[in-house]
């Protein structure tokens, strides 16, 4: 079992390690922010700011 784990770790390329670190890092950053009651990545606010005016131009009020 130990050998299998060691082999799997050794087989990971640098690129894989970087992507995995980014995915874990962003997930942890987001969940810690959410649990702390802050918006860690306010994508909804940004999207509303971008598309809200376009929507109102197209359809009014």
């Amino acid at each position, binding site marked *: 079992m130990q050998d299998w784990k060691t082999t799997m770790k050794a087989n990971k390329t640098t690129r894989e390690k970087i*992507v995995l670190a980014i995915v*874990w890092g962003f997930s942890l950053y*987001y969940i810690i922010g959410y649990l702390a009651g802050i918006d860690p990545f306010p994508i*909804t606010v940004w999207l509303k700011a971008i598309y809200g005016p376009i929507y109102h131009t*197209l359809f009014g009020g």
Partner: protein
Amino acid sequence: MNLQVSRFQFFSIVLNFIIYSSILMAPGITVINAKQDGWLSMLLALGVGLAANFLYLMLFKKHGYPSLFELMDRSAGKWIGTALNIVIVFYALHLTAMVVRNLSNFMITDVSPYSSPYIYQILILLVVAYTSYHGVKNLFLISELFTPFISLFVIGSLIVIIKHFKIIELKPFFYNPPSAILEGAYSTLGFPFIEIMLAGAFLTYVKRKDKLVSIALSAIAIGGAVLVITVILVIGNDSAYIVARESYPTYSVMRDVSLTTTFKRVEIIIGIAWIIGLFFKISTCFCVAMMGIKHLSKSKTFRGYIVPCAILVWAMSNGLHKTFIDFTNFVSMDWTLYWFTLYSFVIITMLIGLARKRA
């Protein structure tokens, strides 16, 4: 290539994606703007959605059905292609989170009020993560198995509500101005007719690719037709005035139906179909995100990314919108433009890829 899916399996995934995203919410979203002409909005959204997907699929065909992520790399070059792939992965995760939130909203407002949304979110994500762990093929096999059953549930549900259908509720036709019908169509265009572009990531795995465009378009057309019929029946049962005030009007209409003295509260039939259908949608989006990350990392498997992404989806499903009203407003006002942006970028990239191929 180890992964191969049949044309029926692909058809079933597209059909489930289209029907179950919208069957409970679409009547409400269209009727808010178009009143009793909500079904015309749905019909218009279906027409525009079919045209948009025809262009998307034809471009895929011209490129020889490669993987979506590979296509972006090949067409836009290494750096812009990678940036586009990151954006597609984010869109897929965002959509996954929104559908998970939609499911938990439904459970705590209509099925089991006062329960915690976290229970439903965590349970569905566990099933989705388990399915993804066993690979994309597993998702297609489950879809092939369940589609006939959930389709029967939907057909049965629609048949039982015909009993109280009144055509007068739909009249006068074209009573509302064209702008109101357009606004209703706008809201349902992105959700689900443009979102379905994510299923393009699976085109490369379909074993027999002849008539693949027709198969994908017929799944969209059949799914869209079911949605149009649902909107007609729901308005004809409850009137546009009531439908516009409901969060999940299809479910509410079913609640008023009692088949016999033994079979009452049959609305759960469509509720079960919707939950299973949403499982397919969530799994589809999640698998597309996983495939994108696998492509970006050049890994042999995406299993290592399932847990962090499932955690992220859970947090996003709760963190993106504080209230149900905010969620609904965002979906009806900004969602279509948001997805249309991705659609435009992907189409432009595909056209650039074609031009580069010919040069």
